[in-house]
């Protein structure tokens, strides 16, 4: 080849077959190199720990809101588990939003066309995004929730308030179930992000339809609807997180777990089916 070209040679790099593992590595680089990932992770940890601890301090009388208002009494009425998991309930919103953004972000920026040009089979991109998202969120959420459980119970105990122990019947299930619910909603958000391809729309659907609608429906619809409403994602999850909503008709924890899992599978399968057919 001629020696004097203005363009340096392209080099002779050898590429390798695009396997699921390589796509996963690619998605891992993507999620790790976005600053928003780590800001959101910090927000999750902070929400779970800080609000759990504050809630426990209020319930134990260490601090009293509005000069000894009804806060302490109400916190006590919720039960010790719900008290220490107050922050975990807040983290549901953060993780659901994070999942929606993880799913829809590339469609909004146009990056998805670069991703699909590198992986034209497309499905490995969805699987890898799910795995990378779970790999970041699951340990953070699970460790924070377990941590706030022991921290919160210690605060309640020190303040002479009622506590429950990890080994008590259903407690471990509720605490770990809470972590499963939080991460599961994130995964549902990610799948809906792939389906709707718009961050705003998916956040709206996940927060509105998945989290708030069931609560609103149980409040507004006659109780004859409870038989149906208990199958909605957040109500099904309440059956195994067992931390609030006293008085609503709920599934048994085991069935609730299966129903909530079915919602996750439904969202992911829906995203996978649509992904292959649609123009990107």
């Amino acid at each position, binding site marked *: *080849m001629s020696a004097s070209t203005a363009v340096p040679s392209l080099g002779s790099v050898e590429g390798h077959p*695009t396997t699921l593992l*390589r796509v996963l590595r690619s998605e891992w*680089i993507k999620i790790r190199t976005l600053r928003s990932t780590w800001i959101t992770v910090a927000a999750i940890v902070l929400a779970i720990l800080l609000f759990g601890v504050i809630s426990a301090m209020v319930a134990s009388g260490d601090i009293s809101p509005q000069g000894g208002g009804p806060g302490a009494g109400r916190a006590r009425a919720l039960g010790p588990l719900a008290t220490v998991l107050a922050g975990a309930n807040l983290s549901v919103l953060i993780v659901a939003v994070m999942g929606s953004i993880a799913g829809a972000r590339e469609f909004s920026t146009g990056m998805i066309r670069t991703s699909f040009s590198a992986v034209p089979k497309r499905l490995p991109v969805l699987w890898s995004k799910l795995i990378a998202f779970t790999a970041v969120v699951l340990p953070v959420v699970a460790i924070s929730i377990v941590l706030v459980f022991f921290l919160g119970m210690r605060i309640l105990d020190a303040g002479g308030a009622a506590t429950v122990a990890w080994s008590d019947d259903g407690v471990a299930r509720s605490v770990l179930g809470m972590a499963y619910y939080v991460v599961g909603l994130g995964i549902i958000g990610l799948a809906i992000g792939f389906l709707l391809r718009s961050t705003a729309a998916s956040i709206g659907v996940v927060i509105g339809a998945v989290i708030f609608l069931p609560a609103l429906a149980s409040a507004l619809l006659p109780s004859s609807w409870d038989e149906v409403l208990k199958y909605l994602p957040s109500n099904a999850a309440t059956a195994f997180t067992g931390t609030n909503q006293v008085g609503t008709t709920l599934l048994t924890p085991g069935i609730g777990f299966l129903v909530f899992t079915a919602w996750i599978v439904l969202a992911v399968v829906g995203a996978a089916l649509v992904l292959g057919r649609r123009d990107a």
Partner: protein
Amino acid sequence: MIEVQDLTKRYGDVTAVDGISFTVPPGIVTGFLGPNGAGKSTTMRAILGLDRPTSGTATVNGRSFRDATAPLTELGAMLEAKAVDKGRSARNHLLAVAATIGVGRARVDEILEMVGLADVAKKNAGGFSLGMSQRLGIATALVGNPGVVMLDEPVNGLDPDGILWIRNLLKQLAVEGRTVFVSSHLMSEMELTAEHLIVIGRGRILADVSMEGFIAMSSQHRVIVDSPDASRLRDLLAGPGVTITSPEPSRLEIDGSTAPHVGEVAAAHGIVLHQLADIAPSLEEAFMELTADSVTFHGSISSDGAAA
């Protein structure tokens, strides 16, 4: 090698691409020309597997791109320069893309150096100018050292230096035996880089010819002559198949004759000439002529039959 067979793509009622077939061979730069909305990007998206054809096929190296084992090593493409995540640096963007074919840092740094982005590799791609984004898009296309390179409007937003760079790059890629398929609406640019042209208008192939063949296809071949005795020359040249117009009193524009013939006639009658020129149409003019219909009717709602 890219092969497109009877490709049709409809979006609802709109037919973006209407049964087109063509082959893009390796070793040369093939230009893909057409006015905006002609179907260039749709065709490229179908080749990449981003859009599913309504009917027909598009293959890369003999098979659908979706079936490629290491896609980035077969076809490197840039459709939109801005198709990057704005929260990530150029280097991390390339690292993520290159990871799909198991390629790492050394190669990414090499390609960043090659496209001239080494200095801004750690800057957020979201803050890039169009020209820098264009270079990052080209880096993304080339990082896997692909045998087929497909670029949609690569000179968009580049400064003169960048345009020269792209021109040399495309030629080098072709010399190296790669298949190079480049779309543009900048005819002058294609004239300098492409050896073969595929012209598309309203979703149909209007021409699939070599550059020389394309220019020769045009009927606008004419002779321009300046003479103080223009009106006498005009009478002498008039004849069947010859059209003469006179934009100024001393100038003639002659269709259907040649410069040597005009010169001989003038000499034989002692007519003084101040200028005599054979005007071959530029690619720009040939293109305008070829696509005039497809542009004119672009805004109409009439059916294909009525428009034709």
